[in-house]
């Protein structure tokens, strides 16, 4: 531990006060918590359909989940790197199994009209769902059926907060459901429901996967790192560009664009190279800069965080000295941007493109990953006639 880190610790320690100017009595918080627990247990028999109905104004029929196994789509495995929550059918009595024997991908049709309660257990973890979500709200997931008044699926928390996809559930052969927007309304719920609502909307909107274990258990795998993360800015308007790069050596046809978009870590970017696959340059700015944007490439230095280089064929258009990416993939900050283009006529158009890209990287650019092989770069491209010398 360094002396300077100690200095920071001392500053925080002193600024936090003593913490002893108030006292919470454990008997009071205990009594409140246990009353809340008792009330929820008494209401649990009604199951949380009411929650979603309250949120969405929907009346969803409660039908027990279950499958005779005849509609098994395929034996499946849980996705690596995700947090897997355990959901129980209303009549589940035992503890969830410890081994995923018989794990399968349910069909969306099988889930129609079913409701599932979020359990405390997290699959293959010693954490509980309340510890991960940060809320003790009773949470129910419900799937509407084709014959019901509403399509879609979603969750309700403490019979108040909730969110739902307005489109019907679709699952890939691997059990993945796509990212999408969840509808909700803000009813001013009590705190546990509010926190749970925010958490689930954040993570579910980035997709995930569903697997079933027998008739009683549904496993919901999501990337919890999306909780609390502000959304990447949409690409719209003149000059706002989105560049999708594919990893050098990866098969573009094999890139699964349905995977959730996430912020990369610096370690994931170090030493990688990328070539442009698709782009949206919001007004043709990028097309004005280069004859063929698909010849743009990007590489991160091995000794990252240090530099990233945007090149056109072999011409390095711009070199960005950055301190890496932040939690939302934003470059931190572009402290040094330089062009290394030599005016020798070998790099056609580079003299125009380089200053524009340089200017663009002076504003934080944002990188996100889709799966492992698709890197999305968002940046604001100024018109070339506005770029300062």
């Amino acid at each position: 531990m360094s002396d300077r880190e100690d200095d920071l610790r001392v500053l925080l320690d002193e600024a936090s006060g003593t913490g002893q100017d108030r006292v919470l009595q454990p008997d009071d918080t205990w009594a409140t918590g246990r009353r809340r627990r008792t009330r929820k247990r008494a209401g649990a028999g009604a199951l949380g359909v009411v929650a979603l109905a309250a949120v969405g104004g929907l009346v969803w029929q409660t039908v027990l989940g279950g499958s005779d196994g005849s509609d098994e789509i395929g034996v499946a495995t849980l996705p690596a790197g995700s947090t897997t929550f355990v959901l129980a059918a209303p009549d589940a009595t035992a503890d969830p199994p410890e081994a995923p024997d018989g794990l399968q991908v349910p069909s969306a049709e099988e889930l129609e009209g079913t409701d599932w309660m979020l359990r405390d257990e997290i699959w293959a973890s010693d954490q509980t769902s309340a510890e991960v979500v940060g809320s003790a709200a009773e949470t129910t997931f419900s799937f509407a059926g084709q014959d019901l008044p509403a399509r879609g699926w979603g969750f309700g928390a403490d019979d108040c907060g909730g969110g739902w996809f307005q489109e019907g559930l679709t699952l890939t052969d691997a059990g993945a459901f796509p990212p999408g927007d969840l509808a909700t309304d803000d009813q001013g719920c009590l705190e546990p429901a509010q926190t749970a609502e925010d958490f689930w909307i954040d993570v579910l909107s980035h997709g995930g996967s569903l697997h079933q274990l027998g008739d009683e258990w549904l496993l919901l795998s999501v990337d919890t790192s999306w909780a609390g993360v502000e959304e990447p800015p949409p690409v719209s308007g003149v000059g706002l560009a989105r560049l999708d790069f594919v990893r050098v050596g990866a098969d573009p046809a094999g890139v699964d664009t349905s995977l959730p978009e996430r912020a990369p870590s610096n370690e994931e970017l170090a030493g990688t190279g990328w070539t442009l696959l698709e782009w949206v340059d919001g007004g043709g700015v990028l097309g004005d800069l280069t004859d063929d944007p698909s010849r743009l490439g990007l590489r991160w230095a091995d000794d990252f965080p240090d530099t990233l280089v945007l090149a056109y064929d072999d011409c390095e258009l711009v070199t960005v000295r950055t301190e890496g990416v932040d939690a939302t993939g934003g470059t931190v900050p572009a402290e040094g941007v330089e062009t290394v283009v030599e005016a020798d006529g070998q790099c056609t158009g580079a003299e125009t493109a380089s200053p524009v890209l340089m200017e663009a990287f002076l504003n934080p650019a944002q990188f996100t990953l889709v799966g492992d092989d698709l890197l999305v770069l968002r940046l604001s491209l100024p018109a070339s006639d506005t770029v300062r010398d």
Partner: protein
Amino acid sequence: MVTTDPAYSEFVLSQQSRLRRAARLMCGDPDLAEDLLQEALVALAEKWESVTHPEAFVRTVIYRQRISWWRRSRHEVVSDPVPERVVGDGAEARARDAEVHAVLRSLPPRQRAALVLRYFEDLTEAQTAEVMGVAVGTVKSLCHQAVARMRSELVAPQTVGRDEE
């Protein structure tokens, strides 16, 4: 009559002071911090039998609730500085504490939480990542940015976390 679990009582009485201080650093408002802590302790009572790590649970609840409240308010509560300990005549210490809180308030909630968990609660990067539900790399990034801001905004910036570089 509800009988309080003795282990719960012991936890609340022994830990609330430190948890309160962490909550104050996270939100910068003593009253809001008290509400955060109280709600987290109520949630702990509700889930007491299934919670294996009470401290981690309470920290996570405080963190998630703080994010949720910030989302809904979209602005920071500007309030009086947190009551500070008195050292000497206290004027210099109060001024420095107010300055620290002002910089903390200027940080985005996730950066602030990462900073408090790492440098006040003394959690490891892995433990901080677990509380926040993010990757260790994200914690590194958040702390890096937060320390950089603290360093640049505070008077005598050369004394703050320089070895983060």
